[in-house]
């Protein structure tokens, strides 16, 4: 299998979902992200790649204001979701995060039942009118996360009792349950074994039909397998952004080439 094979060579231009312009992020005195411009299209998988510590996760967390929970973090620049600045003082991050969901590196199911894990988002956002509707959302989300068949008989079991791959899919189901428009994934497969990784990757491809997916990954192969667009980060700067096929086969920037060929990493 050719690792650099690109899944969807014909990327259609799709509607713009998120646009980031001149974004800077500071942690205290550290300048973590410098002047990044990225456009994220709807119904597309966009991959952020780059060596560790290059700021790709930090930038991802800016997209749904997860950095707000860190006291010392400060974000400058403009990030627009459907044309609205998400860092506008009138924006409530709670509402934003309902529309831009996130899945983390390490599966972090709540110490609750599988059902309650998935129902958590719909409950707090009031998405279900009654019990039956909630049950429906839970089932639909678990199906979308390709977990339904494995857990449908034990929805009351604690989420922590699942295997690692299942836990991560549960977290995806949990994120999907709030009906987001964008799904951010922060190295969702790095804690998983190859089989679970394959399942999750398959799932990401599936999710692309409904959501705009942004995935941070360490592995270029994974980026190549699942994404249509790729952004390459290096030392807090965006080195190159473009179609995945083009980035991998014909990079413009020497640093991209170095990274892809394994000289930086």
């Amino acid at each position, binding site marked *: 299998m050719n690792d650099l094979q690109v899944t969807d060579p014909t990327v259609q231009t799709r509607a713009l979902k998120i646009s980031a312009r001149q974004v800077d992020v500071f942690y205290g005195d550290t300048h973590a992200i410098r002047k990044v411009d990225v456009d994220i299209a709807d119904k597309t998988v966009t991959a952020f790649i780059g060596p560790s510590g290059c700021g790709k996760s930090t930038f991802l967390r800016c997209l749904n204001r997860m950095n707000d929970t860190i006291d010392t973090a400060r974000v400058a620049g403009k990030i627009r979701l459907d044309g609205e600045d998400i860092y506008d003082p009138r924006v409530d991050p709670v509402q934003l995060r309902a529309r831009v969901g996130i899945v983390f590196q390490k599966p972090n199911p709540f110490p609750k039942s599988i059902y309650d894990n998935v129902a958590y988002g719909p409950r707090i956002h*009031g998405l279900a009118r009654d019990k039956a509707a909630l049950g429906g959302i839970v089932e639909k989300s678990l199906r979308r996360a390709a977990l339904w068949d494995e857990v449908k008989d034990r929805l009351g079991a604690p989420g922590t009792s699942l295997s690692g791959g299942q836990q991560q899919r549960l977290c995806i189901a949990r994120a999907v349950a709030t*009906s987001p428009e964008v799904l951010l994934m922060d190295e969702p497969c790095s804690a998983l074994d190859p089989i679970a990784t394959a399942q999750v990757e398959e799932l990401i491809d599936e999710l692309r039909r*409904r959501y705009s997916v942004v995935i941070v990954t360490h592995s270029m192969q994974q980026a190549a397998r699942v994404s249509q667009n790729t952004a390459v980060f290096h030392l807090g700067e965006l080195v190159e952004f473009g179609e995945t096929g083009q980035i991998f086969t014909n990079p413009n920037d020497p640093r991209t080439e170095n990274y892809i060929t394994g000289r930086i990493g």
Partner: protein
Amino acid sequence: MTDATAARPTPSLLAQDNRTRHRNRAEVRFRAFGMAAMGTGVLALAVLLASVVSNGLGAFRQTFITFPVVLSQERLDPDGHRDPAAMARVTTFGYAPLIGRAFADHVAALGIETGLGPRAMAAMLSEEAPGQLRTAVLANPQLVGETITLDVLASGRIDGYFKGRVTLESAERDRNVSPEQLRLAETLAQAGVLTTRFNQNFITAPDASGQRPEAAGLGVAILGSFYMMLVVLVLTLPIGVAASIYLEEFAPKNRFTDLIEVNISNLAAVPSIVFGILGLAIFINFAGLPQSAPIVGGLVLTLMTLPTIIIATRASLRAVPPSIRSAALGLGASRMQSVFHHVLPLAAPGILTGTIIGLAQALGETAPLLLVGMVAFVREYPAPLPAGLFDPASALPVQVYNWTQRSDPAFVERASGAIIVLLVVLIFMNALAVLLRRRFERRW
């Protein structure tokens, strides 16, 4: 796509929807509860301290009356030999009239008109005064026949008048004091005969009986507490450190050490009064040690403090990185040598801090001491160490309890004053512990 997601119209991020507004209000409410709870805690501390300080500061000031007394020979030394043994036959009852008369004469000499009889005037002076004068005269028999200026305590009620505890109205209803006496006191204060000033006797004097709150002091209690703390320090530090070293550095993982571990954490949570029962049954009834003695109180507090010190010591031993032990072992030191030469000195600041905090805890402990007889009324100072360990004594917190059990409201002031002394010592100890920690804290 017939999907709920797609069907939902995308609302603007810039406007909060109703649900979000509602949720945010709940958020604010929740936050306010948290703030209120924290505020309540801090407020409770403030009110507690304010109550103690406002009730207790008065104990450090006392009202004195100053007037000349003629120490007549015929009353105090009928034989005229100035022999202290013979003079000791004159009891305090012989001195009291002398003082009373001198006070009345002085008031008359000042030209103050008062409707009070000599007896009522004498009642304005502390009942402690004759005893104090007698002690002074017996110590220095040459005073007899001279005129000396006497500085005596005013009675508790008169003192209370100048501290706002007693008013003219309350005096109407009080058998122990009359408004006339208070008015006279007021006049005397203007004349400079009666003054309210700092009273060191509160710290140094022994306790006094229930009728003489003005004379009651903390001397015996402070000494008793000090003796007990010495016992606790001398016993807990070596035993606690030895036990911790064993448990942390040498103990194998087995049933016995498990039992000790569980035991120590449980002992730390056993009610203090249970230790008092232990002390009463073992140290007093079984071993036959004397009641009210600092040695017994100290032993009981030692057993109570040991778990605290062991827990603190183990924590600081654990904080010494294993690399230090390996380095010593690598040079051919035995395990014992590596612990005593390297680990223990490095853990010493932490152990010291834990010990001070343990001592502070022991110093404030009251309940177990009640059971080993520290409540007794003790007026004699215990002897110097080490014999004093077996003499009856009181303890600071027990003295507080003792005073709260007396009927005269002046003792509330005394008890609060004693607490101020206790708290000052505790603050000092804790500050020392914090200082030590800051100064010697090491990060590996």
